[in-house]
C-alpha cells in the first residue's frame, strides 16, 4: 500500500512559512517532518505523521517549482503559473535571499568561483549549516554578483530593483558583492572577531565614499562618458592615487610634530589614556597614513582590514583605550590636520579619514 502519487494544488498557491524556512535551511523532508511534529500547535490539529509528511512533500515540491522563479525575482511578479499575492511574493523572495551571518562570514571576500563552491562542505561542517543551504546562499551571492556586475548605476539600487529585496538586504548584498569584487581579506585569525555586520557597515562606508559613484554628479556624467561600468563596485582610482599625497603627514617631520602637538593639546585632560595616546601618536599616524598611501596596490587593498586591525586597533586595544577614547582621538586627529597650514590635501584627507573613522569605530570592539 504505497502512496504512488499525492499532490495538492491550490488556485492561490499555499505556502507555509515554517516549512519554507525548513526547506531553505536545507532540511530533508524526513527531518522537516520530525521538526514539525514536535513544533507548537500540531497537537491542535491531531496531525498524524502521515498527514504532515504529505503536506511537507507537497510544499517542498511547490518550493522547488518556485525556485526557478526565485532565481529571477522580477519574473515572479508577472509569471502566470503560481497565483501568489504580492506580499507573499515579497516574503518568498526576501527569505530566499536571506543568508546566515555565520555562513557569509566564511566566504566574505572570497572569489565566488567553482573552487570556493567546492569547499562549501567544509564551511557546512564548520558552521553547522546544511550543505544545501550553504549552496543556496552561495549561489545567491554569485547570482547577484553576476547580474549587478554588468549593470551601471548605484549598486544598492541595482540589487534592490533586480532582486526586489528590502533595503537592508540589498545593502548587505551590496557589501558582499563589493567584498567579493575587491577580494578583501576577512578570514585571517585576527579578523575573526569581526561580524558580517561590521564588515557590511564598512563596505557601506567604502561604497558611499570611496567609489567613483560616491562623488557628485559632475563626476557621474564624466563616468558615463568614460563608460566606467562598475562605478559602485570599484574604488575610485584617482582618489587612491591622491591618497599618496597624504604621506607628507608622516614624512615631513615638522608636520608630524605639529600635528601631534595639536592633537595632544586638544586631548589633554580629557582622557585617562592620554599618556598612551601621546607616546603612540607617531606610530598610529604612520600606520593610518601608510595604509592610505599603499591603497593603489591591489594587494594592499585586500589587506585593508587586516592593516587597520594590526596598525591601529590592536595597539590601541593593548593600551586599553575605551571606545570613547578612540572616538575622541580620531576626531581630534582628523580635525587637527585642518589646522596644519602646510597641509594642502584637506579634501582627500577628509574623504579618507571619514571612512577610516567610522570603520574603526565599528570595528573597535571585542
Amino acid at each position, binding site marked *: 500500500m504505497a502512496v504512488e502519487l499525492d499532490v495538492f494544488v491550490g488556485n492561490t498557491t499555499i505556502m507555509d512559512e515554517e516549512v519554507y524556512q525548513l526547506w531553505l535551511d536545507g532540511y530533508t523532508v524526513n527531518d522537516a517532518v520530525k521538526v514539525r511534529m514536535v513544533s507548537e500547535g500540531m497537537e491542535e490539529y491531531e496531525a498524524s505523521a502521515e498527514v504532515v509528511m504529505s503536506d511537507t512533500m507537497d510544499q517542498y515540491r511547490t518550493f522547488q517549482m518556485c525556485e526557478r522563479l526565485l532565481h529571477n525575482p522580477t519574473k515572479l511578479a508577472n509569471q502566470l503559473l503560481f497565483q501568489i499575492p504580492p*506580499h507573499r511574493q*515579497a516574503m518568498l523572495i526576501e527569505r530566499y535571499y536571506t543568508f546566515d551571518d555565520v555562513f557569509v562570514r566564511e566566504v566574505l571576500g572570497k572569489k565566488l568561483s567553482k573552487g570556493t563552491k567546492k569547499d562549501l562542505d567544509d564551511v557546512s561542517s564548520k558552521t553547522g549549516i546544511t550543505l544545501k543551504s550553504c549552496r543556496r546562499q552561495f549561489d545567491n551571492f554569485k547570482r547577484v554578483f553576476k547580474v549587478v556586475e554588468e549593470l551601471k548605476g548605484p549598486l544598492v539600487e541595482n540589487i534592490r530593483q533586480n532582486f526586489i529585496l528590502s533595503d537592508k538586504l540589498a545593502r548587505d548584498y551590496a557589501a558582499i558583492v563589493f567584498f567579493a569584487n575587491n577580494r578583501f581579506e576577512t578570514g585571517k585569525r585576527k579578523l575573526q572577531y569581526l561580524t558580517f555586520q561590521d564588515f557590511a557597515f564598512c563596505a557601506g562606508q567604502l561604497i558611499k565614499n570611496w567609489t567613483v559613484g560616491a562623488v557628485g554628479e559632475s563626476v557621474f556624467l564624466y563616468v558615463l562618458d568614460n563608460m566606467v561600468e562598475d562605478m559602485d563596485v570599484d574604488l575610485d582610482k584617482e582618489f587612491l592615487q591622491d591618497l599618496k599625497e597624504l604621506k607628507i603627514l608622516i614624512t615631513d617631520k615638522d608636520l608630524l610634530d605639529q600635528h601631534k602637538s595639536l592633537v595632544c593639546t586638544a586631548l589633554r585632560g580629557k582622557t585617562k589614556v592620554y599618556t598612551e595616546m601621546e607616546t603612540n601618536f607617531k606610530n598610529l599616524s604612520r600606520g593610518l597614513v601608510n595604509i592610505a598611501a599603499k591603497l593603489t596596490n591591489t594587494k594592499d587593498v585586500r589587506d585593508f582590514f587586516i592593516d587597520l586591525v594590526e596598525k591601529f586597533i590592536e595597539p590601541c586595544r593593548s593600551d586599553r583605550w575605551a571606545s570613547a577614547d578612540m572616538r575622541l582621538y580620531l576626531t581630534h586627529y582628523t580635525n587637527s590636520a585642518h589646522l596644519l597650514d602646510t597641509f594642502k590635501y584637506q579634501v582627500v584627507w577628509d574623504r579618507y579619514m571619514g571612512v577610516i573613522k567610522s570603520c574603526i569605530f565599528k570595528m573597535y570592539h571585542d
Partner: protein
Amino acid sequence: MPGKLKAKIVAGRHLPVMDRASDLTDAFVEVKFGNTTFKTDVYPKCLNPQWNSEWFKFEVDDEDLQDEPLQITVLDHDTYSANDAIGKVYIDIDPLLCSEAASVISGWFPIYDTIHGIRGEINVLVKVDLFNDLNRFRQSSCGVKFFCTTSIPLCYRAAMVHGFVEELVVNEDPEYQWIDRIRTPRASNEARQRLISLMSGELQRKIGLKVLEMGGNAVVGYLQCFDLEGESGIVVRAIGTACTLDKLSAGANANAYTHPNTAPASNACNSPSKDSKESPLAHGCRSTHNSPVHSTCSAQRLSQNFSVSVPTLIFAGMGSGGSVGKEAGPLKMLLRQQTQTALEQREFPFFTLTCFPPGFLVHVGGVVSARSVKLLDRIHNPDEPETRDAWWEEIRQEIKSHAKALGCHAVVGYSESTSICEEVCILSAAGTAAILNPRYMREGCLDIGSGDHRFDEPSPPSCGFCHIPYDELNMPFPAQLTYCYQCRRQKVPDVLFTTIDLPTEAAVSGKGCLIQARLCRLKKKAQGEVNATSISNLLPFMEYELHTQLMNKLKLRSMNALFGLRIQISIGENMLLGLASATGVYLSALPTPGGIQIAGKASGDLSNEQHVLSIQKRINDAMAKNKEMYHINPPELSEEAAGSPIPEPKQRSRLFRSQSESSDELSELDLSHGKKDAFVLEIDDTDAVEDIHSLLTDAPPPAGFYSCNTEVMPGVYNWTSGLQMFTSVRVLRLSNANLTNQSLNKIFTDMCENLLKSLYFKLRSMIPCCLCHVNFTVAVPEDELIQVAVTAVAMSFDKEPILEKLGDRAVFKGAGENEDQLQFPMELCAESASVAISNLTAKFTGVPEYAGGPSRATSVDYGSFADRCSTWLELIRLKAHTIRRGSVKTISSSERCSPLPEGRSRSLRSTRSSGGGGGGTAVTVVKMTPLSFLPGTRLIKYLGIINMFFIRETTSLREEGGVSGFLHTFIAEVFAMVRAHVAALGGNAVVSYSMKECVFMENPNKNQAQCLINVSGDAVVFVRDTDQEATPTLIHTSCGGTDGPT
C-alpha cells in the same frame, strides 16, 4: 461569409532558450484558423520579442467560428533545419460570438507544449466582426449562451425553462490511428487536443441549435463529458437545460450575496419576455418537433442497436419493475395532471439544474438512478453515432419511468456519467424525481399569471418540497410516513435523499456535513461479455451497500436528509470502486432520526454481550457528539415545551393542533410495525461488522471545519471573502496480491479519510472554514492502482454572529417579523426562519394539499435482486421505526455558537487581507470556485463558458520530480491557463469550476507518464459588494481575500 475574425500578435515574454549557442531564441508566430495560416516576422535573438504584428484577418462562416479554435503556434526560426515549435495556444472564440459576453480577447496566454508544459507567454488580441445572418437554414447557433452553473445565473432571470437538451458526437481517437505509430508523441497529443476542441465546439453548436429551435436563448447546467473509449473512439457528449434568460438590469441583482435565488425572486414582477408572444401551442409543437431529435427514428435505431450491435449487454432491471413498484395512482391532483401534460410533451422532462427559483420545486420524490453495462465496439460511422445515442436513450427512459413510479413527472439535478475499463463501459444517470410547478414550464404562463393571480393560490409551506409526491396508499416502496413536522398537514418520509442542492427556503436545524460511503469489490479478471456480466452482477450489491452505509452514517450524525447525492462506480480490471458523497442535514420538516441498535447473535455469551454493549455505547456517544458538533437542536422540542412562544399565533395554534394529530398518527405507525422494534445491526454478520467499522472510523472534521458537497453549507451564512479552490489527487498502489473485499474496503476508506485529513490540515489557517462543493472522483487507472481526485473550495466565515445573522436573515426574508424572536434562539433556528420564508415563498406558488415526499434512492431497481432489495427496504423501514422511538430530548441552545478561536483567526484574516494591497502586479488575480457565486461579491457579467482540454506527457518522469512532480506541475499549469483565458476575456473569476476528467497513466520503467485533464467553468466579472463601481479590471487589492492558508 458572416464573420471576420481578427487576430494580432503583440509580444512574447519569458520564452525558453532555443539556441544553445547564443542562449537566445529567434521566435516567430503562426496564427491558424481553419485552413488559413498567417505568420509573423521572425524576431531575432530575443527572449521577450515584440512582434506587434498587423491584424491577421480570417473570413469565415459562423459555423466554423463556433467549432474551430484559433490556433497560435510559437516557433523558433532555424535557417538550416526545421523550425522548432516552442508551444501553442488554443483560443476558444465562442465568447466573442455572444454580444453580451466579451467583446475582445486580449492578454497574456501561457504558451503550452504537451511535452514541456508552459514555455513563456504570448500577448494576443482577438476580435470578431459578426454580420447578421438571416439564413433560416443556418447551422450555427451563435448567440446562445452557455453556463456550467446549475442554477439560474445570478444576473439573469429565467423567463422560461424549456427543458432537457442533449447531444453527442463521436470520432476516432487520434491516439489509436495507424499514423500514431510513426508520429511523435507531441504530434499525437496535439492532434488529440485539437480534435477534442473541435468536437466540443461542434457539440456546443449543435446543442445551441436545439435550444434555438426550442425558443430558448441559453443553456444552463451545461455538462460536457469525454468518453475515451480507446480503440472504439472518442465520444464527446453534453447535456443541459435550455432556458430563456433575461438579463437583469444592474440594480436588480444587488443582493447576490446569499447566492442562488435572488434572480428568480424578481421573476414574478418582471415584464413578459419576448417569447411570450408566441402562442403556447406553437411552442408546444416546436418543442416536440425538436427535442426528440431521435424520437422519430428512435424505435428503429433501438432495434438496430439490439440486433446489430449485439455485444451491448442490457443490464438487468432496465424495465421499471422491481422495488419501484407500480406507477402512482390516479389519485393525484389536478394541478399535477396539468403539469404532466406540459411536461409529457417533452421526451425527457429532465433538468440539470440543482438550484431553483422559489416555488419551482413543488415536491421531491427521491433519487432515481440507472446504470447500464455495455461492451464497446468500434464506432463505424462517426456521423451516425446511433449506438451511443440509443444507449443513453435507454438509460433516460429508465430514469423517466423511475420518476413516474415515484409519482413524479420530472427529474431535477440530473447528470450522466460513464466509467470505462478496456472494452467495458458503465453508463450511469441519476437525478431526483420531483414535481415542478407547471408555471415555469408552460409558454408564457410566467407572465400571464402576473402578481395577483399568484396570491389566489394557497401558499406552499417552506416544507412543501419534503412532502411526498406519491400516493400514500400506493407507495412505490415501503417507507415510514409521518405528518410533516412543520406544517403538520402533509405526509413526509422519514428520510429524504436527493441529488439537488438544499432549497433555500428549507428549514434546517444546525449545520450539514459531508457524508461518504465507500466500497470496493474484487472481481475476477475477464474479457468481453463474461466481464460485463460479472460487473453487472456486482452492481446491485454495491448500490445496496453504498445506500446502507449512507443510511447508517446519516443516522449516526442524527440527520434525516441527504442533498447533492452523487454515486460514482468505477471499474478496473480486477475490482469495482464505489463512492457515494452527499451532504447530510437535519430537515426540520422530517422526523428526528432514531438510534442504531447493536445486537449480538449469540445471546447468553457474556463477553460477547459486553462487546455488544461497548459498541452500542460508542455509537450512542458518537451520535450525541455529532449532535453537539453540528448544532442539531430538533425544533420540535421548542414546540412541545409548554408556553414557548411561537411568533405567529395563527401558526402556533395550527401547529399545536396538528401536533396532537400527528402524535396519534405516530403511535399508530408504531403499532403497525410493533413487532420488530429497532433497526438492528447484528455484529456477527460480517457486513454489519464492516458497517460498524466504517461508521466509527470516520473521523469528524477537526474543530472549526465543516464540509459539504453542495453549493452552500446549511447553517453558515456569514462568509468572508477568504476562499481557496484546490485540486488534490492521490494514487495508491496496492501491493498485496491477496486482498480480500474487507481489507480492500479498509484501504479505500482510509485513503479517502486520510485525504480529507490532509485537506483539513493544509487549510487550517482558514479556520473557521467550510469545505464546499467537495467533489471526489475515483478511478482505477491500472490493475493495482486506486486514484482519488478532489476538487473543492475552502471558504472561511465569521463565527460568532451566527445567532444575530440568523435573526437578520429571518427578518430579511420575512419582512417584518417580530423582533421578539431573537430572544428565543431555539425556534429561530428552525421555526421562525422557516415561517418567515414560507411567508415569502407563499407568494409564488404552492400546493399544500400534497402529501409530500420522501425517498431514498430506491429506484435503482434490479429486478433479479428483488429479494435482497426487499430485505434492504425492510431494514430501512425498521430504521425509520427506530428513528421515531429514539428521538432525543436533550438540547442546549448555548451550543449553537461554540466558543472556538474566532477572535484569533478573525484578526489573522484581517491583517492578511490588509496586506494584499501593496506592490500591484500586472497579473490579474483570478479567483476560481466550484460554486456558482463568490461570497461578498456581485457577479455583474458572464463572459462565456470555459471548457479546456489538455494533454501533458513526459519522457523524463524522474527529472520532473516523479509522478507527483509531474502532475503537480500539470495541474498548476492548467489553473494558470484557465486564469489566463479568463483574464484575457476581461474577467476576474471562474465560477462553477470543475475538473471533469483527470486521466493519469504512468510507466515508471520507461520513465514516462501521460495525463489528460478536462476542466470547465463560467468566466465572470465580479465586483465586491462594497464597491460602487462596476468596472473591475485589474484588481490588485483583491488578492488579500484570495490569500488562503499561509
